[in-house]
């Protein structure tokens, strides 16, 4: 009787130990995956920043003004050409 009880305990212990090993393995795998995703998120973030940087370089006020004046021949309207629309109250 006692022998059988011990055997059950041993079996349980072995099973639990194997469980721990597999859980550990799973955790490591998941963590690695998590890391990869995080690195991807980070690199996307970086790329976004670079794109914003590029956008703001293209949209720099100095450049826009230069293009508007030189390529498109735009200029501020003289006061007589401005029509002010009053908000209807």
């Amino acid at each position, binding site marked *: 009787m006692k022998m059988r009880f011990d055997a059950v305990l041993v079996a349980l212990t072995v099973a639990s130990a194997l469980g721990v090993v597999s859980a550990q393995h799973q955790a*490591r795998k998941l*963590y*690695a995956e998590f*890391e990869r995703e995080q690195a991807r998120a980070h690199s996307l*973030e*970086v790329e976004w*920043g*670079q794109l*914003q*940087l590029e*956008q*703001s*370089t293209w*949209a*720099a*006020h*100095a450049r826009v*003004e230069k293009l508007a004046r030189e390529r498109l021949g735009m200029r*501020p309207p*003289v*006061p*007589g*050409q*401005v029509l*002010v629309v*009053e908000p209807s109250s």
Partner: protein
Amino acid sequence: MKKNQRAVTFNHNPLLKRELPMWRPRFLLLALLAGSMTLAGRALYLQGVNNDFLQAKGESRYARTIEIPATRGRITDRHGDMLAVSTPVRSVWAMPADAKLEPAQVRELARMLEMDVRELNEKLASQRDFVYLKRQLSPEVAQRIADLELPGIHQQREFRRYYPGGEVMAHILGFTNVEDRGQEGIELAFDKQLAGEPGLRRVIKDRRGQIIEGAEAVRPPREGEEVALSIDGKIQYLAWSALRDTMKEHKAKAGAAVVIDSRSGEILAMVNAPTFNPNNRRNLTGEQLRNRVFTDSFEPGSIMKPFIAGLALDRGKVRPTTMIDATAGRMTIGTATISDSHRHAKPMTVAEVIQKSSNIGTVKLAQHFTPTEMWQLFDDLGFGKPLNLGFPGESGGRLRPAKSWKPIEQATMSYGHGISVSLIQMARAYLAFARDGELVPLSLTRLEGRPSNGRRIFSVETARAMRTMLESVTQTGGTATRAQVAGYRVGGKTGTALKIENGRYVKRYIASFVGFAPVSNPRLVVAVMIDEPSAGSYYAGTVVGPLFSRIMEGSLRSLGVAPDAPLTPLHLARRQSEESEAAGVAQESM
């Protein structure tokens, strides 16, 4: 074949025939016992007594705690446009002891690092354990160096800050150092929010420092927060280009301009000249770095006068139409004499004193008050103490305690001499006129909603009367007709102040103008200052009047503020359309 052999077997070994002394096996046994006891004792010592130390030592061979870098927060303008962005770069460093490179490898590395071979060799011959070879390399170059897999050459992730606005935003934003910490401007003022906190991660590394296994994160990194400034990129650019042109035209030494939204107290633009490019800070001079809006104070001169007039009006000492006699052209207080730059032929009203910027008229207004009353006004307006916006190096200006004022000093202070203020303080003080007598704190960051903690300086009536007076400055007969803006009623005051060098006034000038528009319901306060205009005129009306007008006009248009002055229909417009019609007809007939 004859066998001649003596059998030597184990049993017949002649050596065994000799009797051995008994002590020899005993001695051997004891020696072996002692040896194993020593081993057991040593094992016990290592496993038991010294365990923790050894465990830690062992772990340190393979486990490393490495930093996870946190990105510094971005800075945007009020519309969300990027003003400062961090992008990752790499720094290449070496452990000279490990870096045993072939000459060809050194040449290759030097080429990639764009360094001199000799310089690189010197660094690699260093006695230290850690030498930076080059900092802040682009990730592409860094990757190519990593692909060489040179021994003892390592890389480190870092960030570099880019400022797409360049010179335009330089003084507001400031910059960070190579360690990504704020050094100037907003970068320093908001360093706590902007700087993230690097996280920590435990990993297992092999002998060559490669990560084999990522263990758990000890502390996740905290990314830097984004800061949205009150600055309006477009207005900032307008102010910058206007200031640059004025500097060139008047061959000035320096200049500054600031635009404030008078409804919220937000700073919409702040520019300085000379400026610098924050993306390339080699050969920077102190002159370029100086922030004249915040950190420099100057004797303001006549732009101080309206406050004295406002106080006199507010206390009921005078009305705008009260006559003041300044015909003498000079006035003696104690041993000093005060004079006007232009003689005034007939007595003036209070309004005309402001319009024509009479020193004597202003001193006569100031004489209604005791030094303490005047000091209180200046203190209420925020002179003599920093604004505490958190901007580094903010100047409080200089305002001496009223007890120490001599009568002549009280007189000169009324027209802005013997007291010094910063341009931002002056601009803020004019909010008292623009906001119907109420002063609010300024803000460098975008605000949601209107500020509620205003402080009343003048009554509403006084502020409105002062606005009308200040409007007359830009009208015919005033000192700054060139500050007018088509379509809007504009008010403001000129200041042409002598500079002080080593405690004495010298014949060099600071021309300034502070004004607001539209007068009927002010939306903006603009303050401009030009230091030492030296191409012809130095009078504020001619030097900074047009600058003010240009900044104000552009800002009002950009904000879409409704004009409050009747628009004079221009013939120019009509003629142009006639011309184009004529051109069209000419083309048709061809």
